[in-house]
C-alpha cells in the first residue's frame, strides 16, 4: 500500500470522492464496485487506476470475498453488451438493417414523451446523452459530457461539455441546450428526474459547463442523465415540446434521419457529416419495425435483417443455437413487478395475504420455464443482488412454501381469496400469469387471468389515473393484482421512487408509506456505499413486511446480430448503438 502516493491523490478529491476512495482503501468495498461507483460519480479512469495501483494487490483478494455475483449488474454469468470491435481491416460501407420493436403509434418520435423501446432506439441514433455507454455496459464519459464532478455533498453536479458537438446548422452544443432540455423534462414530468431536479436547475452561464443543482443531494445523479434515462437526450434550446424527430431532425449524433414511415415504423438514416466522433463506418442504417417479436426472430434467422434489437428465449432457441449468430446480453435489471392494489380490492385487506402469495411462487419453475435459466430469481424487492448496496442478510431468499402461505392466510383470518389478475400481452407475461395462477391455487388464492391488449392494460388496469381527492392514490382504481414490465436501469432509483413512493407516477400499488419515503430519501442522499446499504437493507425489510408488490425474477435482455457484423453495442433498454458498427 503506497500511502504516500495515495495521500497525494487523496488531497485532490472532494468529500464524496474521498469517502469512496477511503472505503476502497479500507477494503470495505471491492475493486469492481469501486470502479462502478467511481464511474458514476465522475472519477476519471486514470484517477481510479492510480488509486488502485496505490492501494496495491491486497485489495484484489478482498474483492473476491465480496458478495457480488459474477455478473456486473445482470443475471447472466457474463454480461456481453458489446460485440467484438471491428478488426483493423474492415470493409467500410454497407447498409445495416436492425429489426426494431414497433413503437407506440400514438406518441410519435417525441424524445421527451417516448415510452417504448422502438422509439428509444430510433431517437438515440440521432440524439445523444450527457452521459454515455461504456464498453462494459456501465455509464461512461464518451458522450456529450467529457467529465463531471459533484460538490461537497452531492447536491450540485458540474458537467464539462465537449466543445466539438454541433447541431445541424453547425452551431455548437452549449449548456443553454442542456438547461432547456432539463426544463422540458421537468415540465413533462420525466419519471427519472421527478423530485430530483426542478425547473431552472441548470446554470448555463458558462456555455461549456452545465452546473445542475438538485433538490437534495443524490449520489447517483449522472445515471439519471445518461442513456439509461432514455428521455434525457439533449435537444436544442429552441426545440419545443411535442415536436417529433420526423418533423424536425436536430441532433448531435452520428446519424441523420433520412425518412420515417409511420405505418411500417421504418426509419432510414444517413451519416451525419458533422458528427464530433468522426464518421460512421457504414453507409446507411435502417431500423425496421416488427409488430411481432416472433416475426422479427424469423427475419433474423433467415438473415432478412442483420441485427435484432430484442428477442426472448422462448421461440428464440433457433437463434441461440445458430453458430453464425452472436448473442448480446447487456447488463439487465429487467423484471416484472406483480403489484397489489393496497388501498382497495381483494388484496388490500391484509399484508399477510400479500406475503402469502409471495410464498406461493415457484421462482425456479419460472426461471427455467420462461427463460431456460437466463434469469435470476428475485426476492420480492427491486434490488438486484449484484448491486453494491444490496443487503444479502436483511431478507433471506424466499422459496416456495405452501404451508407458510397457508399459515399467513390463517393468521389474517382469510380462507380464500378470489381475484382477477390482469396483465398486458407482452412477452412472457401472460405465461407468468398462468404459472402464478397455478402456484397460488394450492393455498386458496384463486386467480382468474385476464390478458389485455397493451393499450387497454396500461390505461385501464395498471394505472387508470390519479385520484382527484386522495394524493396517496396516483393510480386510483388499478387492478387488485397484476403484472407489469420494468425495463433496465443501472440503479434502482426509479423502481423505488416512481413505482413505490407516495404519489409516484408508476405507483400502481397506491402504496403510501412515510417510512418508505424516508428510507428512499436516506438512500438517495447517502454519501457512501455503506450508508446506501443501510437504507436499502431497511427498504428490503419493509418491502417484505408491507408487501406492496412481488418481484419474481430479473431476466436477461437478449439482443444479437449476424456474425458478419461488428462494433454493435446494446442496452437492456432497447438501444442499439451503431455509430462504429461495420458489416463484412
Amino acid at each position, binding site marked *: 500500500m503506497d500511502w504516500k502516493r495515495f495521500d497525494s491523490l487523496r488531497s485532490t478529491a472532494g468529500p464524496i470522492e474521498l469517502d469512496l476512495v477511503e472505503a476502497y482503501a479500507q477494503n470495505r468495498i471491492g475493486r469492481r464496485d469501486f470502479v462502478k461507483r467511481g464511474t458514476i460519480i465522475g472519477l476519471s479512469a486514470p484517477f481510479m487506476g492510480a488509486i488502485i495501483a496505490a492501494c496495491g494487490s491486497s485489495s484484489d483478494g478482498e474483492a473476491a470475498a465480496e458478495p457480488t455475483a459474477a455478473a456486473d449488474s445482470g443475471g447472466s454469468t457474463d454480461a456481453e453488451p458489446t460485440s467484438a470491435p471491428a478488426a483493423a481491416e474492415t470493409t467500410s460501407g454497407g447498409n445495416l438493417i436492425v429489426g426494431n420493436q414497433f413503437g407506440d403509434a*400514438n406518441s410519435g418520435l417525441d424524445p421527451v414523451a417516448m*415510452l417504448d423501446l422502438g422509439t428509444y432506439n430510433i431517437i438515440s441514433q440521432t440524439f445523444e446523452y450527457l452521459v454515455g455507454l461504456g464498453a462494459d455496459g456501465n455509464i461512461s464519459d464518451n458522450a456529450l459530457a467529457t467529465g463531471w464532478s459533484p460538490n461537497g455533498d452531492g447536491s450540485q453536479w458540474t458537467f464539462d461539455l465537449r466543445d466539438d458537438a454541433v447541431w445541424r446548422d453547425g452551431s455548437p452544443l452549449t449548456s443553454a441546450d442542456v438547461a432547456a432540455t432539463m426544463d422540458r423534462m421537468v415540465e413533462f414530468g420525466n419519471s427519472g428526474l421527478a423530485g430530483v431536479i426542478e425547473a431552472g436547475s441548470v446554470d448555463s452561464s458558462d456555455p461549456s459547463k452545465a452546473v445542475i443543482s438538485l433538490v437534495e443531494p443524490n449520489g447517483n445523479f449522472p445515471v439519471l442523465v445518461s442513456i439509461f434515462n432514455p428521455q434525457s437526450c439533449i435537444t436544442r434550446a429552441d426545440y419545443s415540446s411535442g415536436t417529433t424527430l420526423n418533423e424536425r431532425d436536430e441532433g448531435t449524433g452520428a446519424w441523420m434521419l433520412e425518412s420515417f414511415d409511420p405505418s411500417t415504423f421504418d426509419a432510414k438514416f444517413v451519416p451525419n457529416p458533422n458528427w464530433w466522433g468522426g464518421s460512421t463506418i457504414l453507409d446507411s442504417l435502417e431500423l425496421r419495425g416488427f409488430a411481432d417479436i416472433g416475426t422479427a426472430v424469423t427475419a433474423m434467422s433467415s438473415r432478412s435483417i442483420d441485427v435484432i434489437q430484442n428477442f426472448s428465449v422462448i421461440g428464440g432457441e433457433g437463434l441461440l443455437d445458430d453458430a453464425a449468430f452472436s448473442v448480446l446480453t447487456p447488463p439487465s435489471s429487467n423484471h416484472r413487478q406483480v403489484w397489489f392494489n393496497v388501498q382497495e380490492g381483494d388484496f388490500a385487506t391484509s399484508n399477510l395475504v400479500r406475503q402469502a402469495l409471495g410464498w406461493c411462487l415457484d421462482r425456479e419453475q419460472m426461471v427455467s420455464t420462461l427463460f431456460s435459466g437466463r434469469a435470476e430469481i428475485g426476492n420480492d424487492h427491486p434490488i438486484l443482488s449484484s448491486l453494491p448496496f444490496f443487503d444479502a442478510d436483511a431478507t433471506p431468499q424466499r422459496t416456495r412454501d405452501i404451508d407458510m402461505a397457508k399459515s399467513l392466510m390463517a393468521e389474517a383470518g382469510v380462507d380464500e381469496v378470489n381475484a382477477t389478475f390482469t396483465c398486458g400481452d407482452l412477452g412472457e407475461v401472460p405465461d407468468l400469469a398462468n404459472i402464478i395462477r397455478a402456484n397460488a391455487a394450492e393455498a386458496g388464492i384463486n386467480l382468474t387471468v385476464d390478458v389485455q391488449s397493451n393499450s387497454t392494460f396500461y390505461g385501464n388496469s395498471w394505472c387508470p389515473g390519479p385520484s382527484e381527492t386522495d394524493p396517496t392514490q396516483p393510480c386510483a382504481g388499478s387492478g387488485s393484482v397484476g403484472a407489469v414490465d420494468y425495463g433496465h436501469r443501472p440503479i434502482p432509483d426509479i423502481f423505488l421512487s416512481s413505482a413505490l413512493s407516495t404519489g409516484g407516477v408508476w405507483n400502481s400499488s397506491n402504496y403510501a408509506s412515510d417510512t418508505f419515503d424516508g428510507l428512499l430519501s436516506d438512500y438517495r442522499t447517502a454519501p457512501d456505499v455503506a450508508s446506501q446499504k443501510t437504507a436499502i437493507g431497511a427498504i428490503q425489510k419493509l418491502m417484505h413486511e408491507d408487501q406492496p408488490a412481488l418481484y419474481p425474477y430479473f431476466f436477461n435482455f437478449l439482443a444479437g446480430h449476424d456474425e458478419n457484423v461488428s462494433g454493435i453495442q446494446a442496452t437492456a433498454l432497447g438501444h442499439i448503438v451503431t455509430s462504429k458498427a461495420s458489416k463484412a
Partner: protein
Amino acid sequence: MLRYIARRLALSLITLFLILLIVFSLTRVFPSEPARQLAGPFASEERVEQLTENLGLDDPLPTQFGRLVRDVVTLDFGESFSQPGVRVLDLIRPALWNSAKLVILSLLLVLPISIFGGIMAARKKDTLLDRSIVSFGLASASIPDFVSGVLLQFLIGVKLGWLPAVSNAPDDAGLLTGIKFILLPALAILFVYFGYIARITRAGAIGAFEADYTRTAYMKGMSSSKVIRKHVLRNALQPTVAVTGTQMGYLFGGLIGLEVVFNYNGLGGLIFRAATAPDFPLLQAAVLSVAIIFMLSTLAADLIIAWMNPRARLDLGDD
C-alpha cells in the same frame, strides 16, 4: 347495360353512405375517451383536453358527421389522429398498393390452378382423381390462413431458404424480386382458396357437362377440348366469377393474420391498428376503401357474368 351500371353505382352510393354512418356511430358513440387513449396513460389532463379540442371530438355529433361526409366527398381525409402531421391518404396509399400486389399475385396463382383442378375433377367425376382433388381442397381450406402461412414460412422460408421468410422487399426491388418477397403469403392464400374455387368450378362444370348443349356438341363431333373451350367454360365459370368477386373484400381487408406473420404492410393490419389506436380518420378511410373495392368487384363480376351468359343479361335489364 349502361342503365344497369348507372343504377348499380347509384345504389352503391347509398350503401357507402350507410357504411359511413355505421362506422361513424361505432367509433363516436361507444368507446369512451379516444383522446385519452391517443395521448397515452401518462399525459396530463390538460393535454387530453387540448387534444380533444384539436381533433374536434367535442363538437356535436351531427357536425362531426357532416365533416366526415365532406372529407369523403372531397377525398381529403385529413390527418391521422395517431400520427400527427401525417395525411391519412399517405398512410392508406402504400397499404392499398401492397394489398393489391398480393391480391394480383394470389389470383394469378389461385384462378388457373383451381379452375383447372375443378374442371379436371368434373370431367373425371367420381374417380380417384376427382375425390382426391375434392378431399385435398376440403382439407387445405379448413386450415386457418395464418397457420398455413406460418408453416410455409418455416418450411420454405427458414428451413429451406428458397424464398424470403419475411415480406419486406427493398425499395428498389424489381418485378421479379418483388414477386419473390410476396410469394409465400400468396401460396398461403392459394391453400385457403384452392378447395373453395375448385369445388365451385367443379359444380358448375358438372352442370355444364351434363347439359343438353354439351351433349349436342359432342354428338356433332366436336373434340372434347373444343367442347370445353366453347361451351363448358363459359357456363361453368359463372359461379366462379361471382364468388371471386365477392371475395375481393376479404382479400384486401381481411388478411390481417398473414400480414402479421409476414410483416407485410397491408390494409388488414392498417384497419386493425386504426381500430385499436383509435384513429378515426384513418379507420374511416380504410374501411371505405375496402367497401368500395368490394362493391366495384361485385359489379365487375356481374358484368363479366353477363358477358359470358347472354341470358343473364336479361336480368340486368338489358334491352
